[in-house]
């Protein structure tokens, strides 16, 4: 199977070369199962390479420019020399989180904090450490999702990812009170990083998890993240993905979820900024009575591109799923929404809904909305729909008749449009912060710079957090 792809992109060459040079070394420390997964995945990658526009699932998202770059593969740990809040300042105020971070693809913390175990059995830390210290948990779950190799990004991640975040919540434990916050950042130029996260919730376990993709400079880069999430029976997960990266970074983010009976997942994917973002969520409802509610909001402008692929697999009866994605696209921004709901033959009494609504603010903005249903059971309630439109003229006139100028009226309506997604954020302090960020984003005031202490573009710029009530 080797080298069946005729020519490679520069970035493919860089990745293959890195793998070839390090495979033997990695084999020393990896369990045989992982070594074999790496080899299989690399064979796939050598054969198929990165995805391209000709592939059904990648129509509309062109990463050619990224493939042409000779980015540096970085898979080393960054030595801990300063606290992450000196690199990156988190904006969520009045909101207590337990914060962990992945810097340039590897878990970043002081040596003793790389992997911590709480008295209740909760394990949080570096995936690379968990592989060594908790092989029984690691090997039970890592790479166990079916069809884990489906495209070049998944394959190259499986072949090359060496670290990321590991979260294990044992049976019956609720990580309540604090939300766990994972910050994923790049602060070096021109890196290609492969990060892997593994999150396991036991039976009746509960986790509220905030995953922030941020960048702290304006250098180009590629972040390729794969997260595997397993929920035991009756487990509950709230996952918030907050994406605010620079216009130069490409982010490919894949989340695979396996849900046992009566488990519940709620996801909010909030994309506030990013040059090129591809989110793929694949959620398998494998046990009776499981449910998921996956919502997304994307606000893109300039020449940004956002691609959300969501698939929900109803593999068991009596499961409910909901997908709601809303987006506002301005200037020459482009987007893809691809929602897929699959209902297996025996998955009776399924309720599955998906909806994608878009507002295009300019004639040059574009969205490809592709909702799909594939139903093999006969006792189901399913619905899907997509809409693309402009702002409601009547509502705009109503606001202007109250004296509100066009630009402000337009912003208020965009904010109102986003509300379906924002109101579902159940942690008050987080919701208020996100609402504030959305308001500032809509006013064109949110930049990735005012969130980081480096302030490369405007070093003395003060950080302002107050919500300006006069504006909204």
């Amino acid at each position, binding site marked *: 199977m080797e080298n069946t792809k005729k020519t490679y992109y520069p970035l493919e060459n860089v990745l293959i070369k890195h793998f070839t040079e390090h495979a033997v070394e990695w084999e020393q420390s990896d369990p045989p199962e992982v070594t074999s997964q790496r080899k299989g995945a690399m064979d796939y990658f050598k054969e198929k390479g990165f995805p391209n526009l000709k592939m059904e699932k990648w129509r509309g998202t062109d990463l050619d420019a990224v493939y042409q770059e000779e980015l540096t593969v970085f898979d080393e740990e960054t030595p801990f020399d300063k606290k992450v809040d000196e690199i990156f300042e988190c904006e969520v105020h009045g909101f207590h989180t337990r914060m962990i971070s992945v810097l340039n693809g590897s878990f970043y913390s002081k040596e003793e904090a790389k992997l911590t175990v709480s008295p209740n059995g909760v394990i949080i830390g570096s995936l690379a450490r968990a592989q060594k210290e908790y092989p029984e948990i690691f090997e039970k779950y890592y790479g166990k999702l079916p069809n884990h190799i489906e495209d070049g990004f998944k394959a190259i991640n499986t072949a090359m990812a060496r670290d990321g975040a590991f979260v294990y919540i044992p049976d019956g434990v609720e990580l309540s009170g604090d939300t766990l916050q994972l910050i994923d950042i790049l602060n070096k130029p021109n890196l290609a990083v492969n990060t892997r996260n593994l999150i396991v919730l036991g039976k009746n376990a509960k986790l509220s998890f905030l995953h922030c993709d941020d960048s702290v400079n304006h250098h180009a880069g590629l972040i390729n993240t794969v997260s595997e999430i397993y929920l035991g029976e009756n487990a509950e997960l709230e996952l918030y993905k907050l994406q605010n990266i620079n216009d130069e970074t490409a982010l490919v983010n894949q989340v695979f979820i396996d849900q046992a009976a009566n488990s519940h997942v709620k996801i909010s994917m909030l994309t506030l900024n990013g040059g090129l973002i591809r989110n793929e969520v694949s959620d398998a409802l494998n046990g009776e009575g499981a449910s998921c509610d996956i919502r997304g909001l994307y606000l893109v402008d300039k020449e940004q591109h956002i691609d959300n692929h969501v698939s929900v697999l109803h593999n068991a009866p009596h499961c409910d799923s909901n997908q709601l994605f809303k987006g506002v696209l301005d200037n020459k921004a482009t987007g893809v929404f691809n929602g897929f709901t699959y209902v297996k033959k025996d998955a009776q009494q399924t309720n599955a809904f998906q909806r994608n609504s878009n507002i295009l603010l300019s004639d040059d903005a574009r969205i490809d909305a592709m909702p799909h249903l594939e139903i093999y059971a006969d006792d189901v309630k399913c619905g899907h729909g997509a809409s693309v439109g402009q702002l*409601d*003229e*009547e*509502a705009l*006139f*109503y*606001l*202007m*008749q*109250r*004296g*509100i*100028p*066009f630009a*402000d*009226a337009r912003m*208020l*309506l965009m*904010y*109102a*449009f*986003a*509300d*379906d997604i*924002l*109101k579902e954020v159940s942690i008050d302090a987080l919701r208020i912060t996100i609402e504030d960020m959305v308001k500032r984003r809509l006013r064109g005031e949110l930049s990735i710079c005012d969130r980081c202490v480096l302030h490369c573009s405007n070093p003395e710029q003060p950080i302002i957090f107050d919500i300006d*009530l*006069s*504006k*909204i």
Partner: protein
Amino acid sequence: MLLNIKDLHVSIDGKEIIKGLNLSINKGEIHAIMGPNGTGKSTLAAAITGREGYEITKGEILYNGKSILDWTPDQRANEGVFLSFQYPIEIPGVSMTNFMRTAMNAKREYKNLPPMQAGEFLKKMEEKKKLVDINAKMTNRSVNEGFSGGEKKKNEIFQMAMLEPELAILDETDSGLDIDALKVVANGVNQLKSEDNGFLVITHYQRLLDYIIPDFVHVMFEGRIVKSGGKGLALELEEKGYEWLKEPYAG
């Protein structure tokens, strides 16, 4: 003169709806416009408030002596023209409080005044809520979202009370109201009436005019005012219907 409309012609998509309308309103006056459906009453309201798509092909609208035809809808609003909508719009995710504060401060900014202090604003809101018997919780809800027909109309009058317009146009404010809500709305209007403002009440039925007593009643038919009179005209219309007025003008 507060409003002076001269030989107004208005078209929508090239079709002429208002065909030469004249109307003058002075401060301190309440004018009612009545008439059958489809005769151009709401079009007149849209033309005065500057709604897009309503093309003024001929004539003039003077407001306080100035032509407003080139003004944007927000400029007209900030100069004191208010429209109580026949079908108020729902705006999910934007609370009434923030909506009103945005509107009030837009007007203040237009008048080169500093934004209103939060305390002063809230006090004013409390005061005006009483005027139309608005539930305290209503202002925390999103604008018109899930409001009943009556609540939406009360909310329009509440907004009018907050914004204190010079010229208030009430477009079919009575439609969909039960008698109790109608009384509340009318009471709100009567309390807001002063020597410094004027009202244009558009209605299909006479019953609203039992509670808001007009100084002048105009009957509109096929894009023109075909008869004007005092409040007695409304009663006459209630009794005789519109047919007796149509005949000389139809076709």
